[in-house]
Structures are given as C-alpha cells and as structure tokens.
C-alpha cells in the first residue's frame, strides 16, 4: 500500500488521469447552441409574449372586459378601461399590458373565462425603449395574428387554456324539459 502510494505520487497518476479526461473531452462534440443563428423552438405551452385572441366568427377580440385578469395579476400590469355603448353593451375601450412588469405567471390566462388573454410562444421581443414594450389592444391583437393564429389557438385551447366557458354547453344526454328540447 505504501509503495503504491509513492508510485502514485511520483508518476502523478491522478493528474495524468485528469489530463487524459480533458484531452478526451477536447475531441468530443461541443454542446453549445449558437443562439441567434440556431434559435431554439419554444416548447408547447411556453409562456412568452402576450396576445388578445380573436373570435373566429366576428374577428373581434374575445375579451368582454370582465377584469378578472387585472384582478388576479400579481404585478398589476394589466389595465382595462370599459365604457357603455349606446345599446348598453360593455365595450372594452382600452386593454393594456405593461410587458416589462409582467412576471409570466399566466394567472391571467387561467383566470380568463373566455381565454381572451393568452401567452404566445414568441420570446424574442427586446426593444430599446419602454414604449415599444407597452402593449395596447391593437398590438395585442396583432400579436395574436402573428404568433398564434387560428390553428394553434385551437390546439392551445384544448391543451392549455381550457377556459371555464368551454364546459358551459349542455351535454346531449342531459335531462331537459320536453318542450324545451323540441324547441318550442
């Protein structure tokens, strides 16, 4: 044992082992991703830039201005201003998100009963001033057109958003009054 220890010290076997390891790893493939050249695709369900979804029939925003998202937002970065229209329906006049204050918790997406406010997979949106990162309603809608779209919307609707209103419909097998079922 003693002689072995001495041989180990004299020939520096441990250092030689370490050197062999570094030499071996020199010829292995580097794991670096060269980011701007090789962008990384976002995983499904990624919480990136915000968007307001559109109603596929009307093309307008699904948002009804209930304010649940603004209420639950921990960093209070959602501002909603609503008014009354002449026919007494609620109109969402302004819907604004301060992206710089957002913490991407997606509580707003969970709270929204219509999945009107969502987070897209887009994550490369750095800007040189605060104004570019202050999202107004128009910009949020155009974010939806650019980074979400109808097909992805459907997929996300089923898998991730699944708002409360998705379950509001009447199942076919539910018992109902006869007159009602016949549609009188």
């Amino acid at each position, binding site marked *: 044992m003693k002689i072995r220890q001495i041989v180990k010290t004299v020939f520096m076997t441990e250092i030689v082992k370490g050197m062999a390891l570094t030499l071996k790893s*020199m010829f*292995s493939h*580097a794991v670096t991703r060269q980011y701007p050249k090789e962008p990384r695709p976002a995983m499904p369900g990624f919480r990136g830039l915000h968007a307001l979804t559109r109603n596929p029939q009307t093309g307008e925003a699904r948002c009804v201005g209930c304010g649940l998202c603004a209420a639950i937002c921990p960093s209070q970065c959602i501002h909603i201003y609503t008014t009354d229209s002449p026919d007494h329906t609620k109109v969402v006049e302004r819907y604004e998100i301060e992206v710089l204050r957002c913490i991407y918790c997606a509580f707003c997406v969970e709270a929204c009963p219509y999945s009107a406010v969502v987070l897209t997979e887009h994550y490369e949106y750095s800007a040189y001033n605060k104004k570019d990162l202050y999202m107004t309603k128009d910009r949020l809608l155009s974010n939806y057109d650019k980074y979400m779209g109808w097909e992805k919307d459907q997929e996300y609707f089923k898998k991730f958003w699944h708002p409360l209103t998705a379950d509001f419909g009447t199942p076919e097998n539910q018992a109902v009054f006869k007159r009602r079922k016949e549609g009188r």
Partner: protein
Amino acid sequence: MMKFFELTALVSLGLLLLKIAVVIGAVMLHVAYATYFERKVIGHMQVRLGPMNVGFHGLLQPIADFVKLFFKEDIIPEQSDKPVFFIAPVIAVFATMSSVAVIPFYEGFRISNINIGLLFILAMSSLGSYGIIMAGWASNSKYSFLGGLRSSAQVVSYEIALGLSLVGVMMLSGSLNLTDIVKAQERYPFGMFLLPQFLGCFVFLISAVAETNRSPFDLPEAESELVAGYFVEYSGMRFGLFFVAEYLGMIIMACLGTICFLGGWNGPFPIPYLPFGWFVIKIYIIVFVYYWIRATLPRYRYDHLMGLGWKVLIPLALLNIVITGIFKVLA
C-alpha cells in the same frame, strides 16, 4: 574609403532593423493568436466552442480584442503613484520582449548571438516581475498589492528551481550560448536533452508555468480571490500590455524549453523551405501543454505552492545536477 565603410555599416544596420522588425512582428502575431488558441482549446476541453463570431470560427477575434483595448478609456486611479503606475506595464513588456533578441530560431538566425544567452533570458524573466510588483504597489489597491506581493514571492522561489533545472543542460553542453546548447544536443538520442535530462525537464516545465504566473500557479492574478490581482486597476491598452507580457513570457519559456530540452530547430527530418519548422512545432506543443494544464488543474493553495517549490522542485533539480555530474565524470 570612409564612404564605403559608412555604406556597409548603414546596410548592416538596416538589415538588423529589418530582422528585428520581422522577429517582433512574428512573435507579436504569435502572442495575439496564442490568446485565440487558448480560448479555443480551453473551450473545446470544456465542451464549449470558444470564439465563433468574429470571422471564420472567430479567427479575427484577437484583432477585434486589440482594437477594443486600444480604444478603451484609460482609467487612472486618483490615489495611484502616477510615474510608477505608468512605467510598470512598459517594464513588464520590455523585459520579456528583450528576451526574444537572443533566441536562435534556426541555424544562424537570431538577432544577437551572445555567450550568456541563457542567463540573459533568466535575468529578463526575473526583471519582468518588477513590472508586476510595481503595478501592484502603484495601483494603491489592496487586491493588486496582494497580487504583487504574491508574485514577488512566487517568482523568487521558482526562479531558483528554474535556474537549477537548467544547470544540468549547461553541464552537458558546456555553454550558456543557446546556439551551442542546441548543437550539443545532436549527439544525444532524438537530438534532444529530454532523456538524459528528464528530471531537469520536469522541473523546468513546472517552474516555467509558475514563473509566467499561469494556472495552476496563477496566484498573483487569482480571479476568485483577488479579482484580477496586480492589474485590477489597469484598463485599456495598459491592461493590454500586461496581457501581452504574460503571453510573451509564455512563448519565451516555450522557446527556452525547446532550445534546452527538445533540441531546438533540429528534427527527425528537415522540413523543406521552413528551417524553423521544427522549432515552431515544438513551441506549439509546449504552449498547448500550458493550455492543457490550465484547463485541467485547479489553483494551488499558497502554502502548497511554496512547499512544492522549495521542498520538491529545488531538491529534484539539485538531484538532477548530482546525477548529471556523475554521468559526466563516468562517461
């Protein structure tokens, strides 16, 4: 008659200046690309890529670094000792750069052929540490002061081991002239002192790493404890000068190792049109080993560093001298 002499003197002076320009240019290019290859080699050893963006595979990175350093703001600490602060990087660079003058790159090509070439290089490498100590002192910062103190202690202790490891070479070749040392090696196996002087070579390589303040003996600049050691307060081109001095010192030590232990410009077969081919290849191998050691080993503790220098390397070098002496007497 006078005119003729003046003309020949002028021509030889011009040739000498041209020679110096060529050598300095080539060496500085090597220094620049030593930084690039260090980053590349260490990067690949750590399963990274190293510089990739400036030019093809980052080949223009050293030039970009130079331009950046040159145009950076030069910050001078208010409480610093100005003249010493200014002169320290210059001393560090010029002490190492003047060693290039005596290095024979191939048969008959060197700037000056002096008989104490080996001693000259050793003297210059210890002068280089003055630059470091002065920088540490003049910066008026505790980090750089500690770095300077550590450097002086380290250089003083490892210089002895470095000098003693070369004594065996001097005994075998019977000369301090670097050209004569290379020529003396032709009689030995592989045309090198590597086998008859393996102990000396071992001690030399380790103390050369310590002498140039490189990892695992980079205590003077220990990033994790002293931020950057003796050049914390330097910025811009003054910092660049220290950087150049470090890599230049590394290349000088590689040259010295090549000349004293690896047989200089002699190789197993002559490379056509490149008389310095083998010399350069051997330097690259030694410099690569420097990088390799840096990528592998962690930094020594300070007392271990001193213990290694005084208790291991110096006795080994002395043993090498005794063994060489016995063989010299017997043979």
